[in-house]
């Protein structure tokens, strides 16, 4: 098993309370690990620290980017981790109020380097083929999550479930995808779409992408995860096969 993401002794304190206390884990390519535990045990905080949204007080995170060796990414900013394929899907939608659904996906699809900068803007205006291919990709994604009809609606006009779908489409639009951190991905999403999502996640896992999934639904986990990591009060208390 080729290691993809490794965390050693992650500790995060807030106002004296240890939200994470010496958490270590390892995820390999193509491996899906479920993250379980009661509310407040540190699952979301762990994902935040792994994706760069938050910084650990102590500990180290290592990650193997595409065509690269395991690197120490503890000091990498979150955007750099995202560009290297370490993606985080949030529990709450975090949509961009004033942008349309289509623009959400477009923004995520052009996440990397050149298109994101002002010089890239010039290249974008001049290359109609680039625009066409990116737009086509975005349309396919919107079809997949079932939001094609709402492509031009502003994100603030959507229902909660639709907002979560937009977040999912954003995740799927990322140009580089190697390690997914999913925080309750099925919560708030209609059952038909959940089925398709799990199908898709299985395919993605088979292609070598690693996953760390926070999920309360044990049944869903058993269909997807290879192993389960249990947290309690910021510590790892169990690791093993899916029950």
């Amino acid at each position, binding site marked *: 098993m080729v290691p993809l993401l490794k965390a050693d002794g992650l500790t995060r304190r807030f106002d004296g309370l240890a939200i994470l206390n010496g958490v270590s884990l390892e995820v390999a390519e193509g491996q899906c690990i479920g993250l379980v535990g009661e509310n407040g045990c540190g699952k979301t905080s762990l994902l935040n620290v792994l994706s760069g949204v938050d910084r650990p007080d102590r500990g180290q995170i290592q990650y193997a980017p595409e065509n690269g060796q395991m690197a120490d990414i503890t000091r990498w900013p979150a955007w750099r981790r995202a*560009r290297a394929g370490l993606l985080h899907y949030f529990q709450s939608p*975090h949509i*961009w*109020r004033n942008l349309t659904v289509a623009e959400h996906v477009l923004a995520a699809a052009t996440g990397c380097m050149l298109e994101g900068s002002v010089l*890239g803007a010039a290249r974008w*205006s001049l290359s109609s083929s680039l625009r066409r291919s990116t737009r086509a990709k975005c349309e396919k994604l919107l079809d997949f999550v079932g939001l094609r009809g709402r492509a031009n609606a502003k994100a603030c006009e959507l229902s909660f479930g639709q907002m979560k779908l937009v977040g999912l489409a*954003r995740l799927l639009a*990322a140009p580089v995808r190697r390690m997914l951190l999913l925080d309750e991905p099925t919560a708030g999403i209609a059952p038909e779409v959940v089925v398709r999502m799990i199908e898709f996640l299985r395919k993605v896992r088979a292609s070598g992408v690693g996953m760390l999934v926070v999920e309360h639904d044990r049944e869903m986990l058993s269909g997807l995860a290879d192993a389960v990591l249990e947290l309690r009060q910021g510590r790892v208390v169990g690791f093993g096969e899916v029950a």
Partner: protein
Amino acid sequence: MNFLWNALILINIYALLCLGNNLTVGYAGLLNLATAASFAIGSYTTALIMTRLGMGLPMAIGGAILVSLVLALVIGSATLRYRRTSFALASLAFQVLVLAVIRNTEVFGGTLGIKGIPRPAWIGTGSGSLLAFWLLTAVILVAVILGYLGLRRSPWALALQASRDDELAAVSVGKNVPWIRVEAFLVSSVIIAVAGGLFASYIQYIDPTSFGVDESILLLLALVCGGTCNTRGPVLGAVFVIALPEWLRFLDVSAPYAANIRSIVFGILVILLMRYRPQGLAGRYALD
């Protein structure tokens, strides 16, 4: 007649200022209090290049663009690493410090400023000269507007708006938020510097009083009043700032009070707009 051309020329210059500010305040969602300082950098650099080095307006404005790029890069890179409101504070610091340097250094003429800034030779001094200058400003304004229309739908503009609406999500899709904010500030500064150069050459005499914190505040409010994230809003804001005192003159309000009344009307208008119509009079983005 001259008075009309004067207003029209100033409208174009202020429209450039508002369009520049639009990127930083509207698209990137930052509170920019350094507009007047960037304006000053453009004006003073142009003035010095034209008066001390004897070069023409195009070279002078080129110099102004370079200087403002360097300074904006320094300020931006040092402080935009952190969160959004460090930008507001840093822009305020930039504003005050730049003005202090200008006011206290002889090369800039201190409190007396720089006089005798020439207009471009081809404009001449005859009866058509104001029309010619207006044409010059109009051409530049149109060029900037075209640039805007080109950039508006680009991924970069989307990234800026994303960083404004939800920074966390923007970062999670790989946007280097600190850096694109620096870029927005850079492009803004360039446009504002060009406006500064045109202003210096038009008015032919500049001093620090036109470039203080109060002017930054007025420009910010003008932009918000007109509206952000499109081209109509900033231009409309500029029209308001310039036209209001002129209308007041018609109403026979005596000159010193005109400036006070303009500001009071503006202030009340902005307060009402923020409360009832946060997209301004003609803007696309509701500041909310």
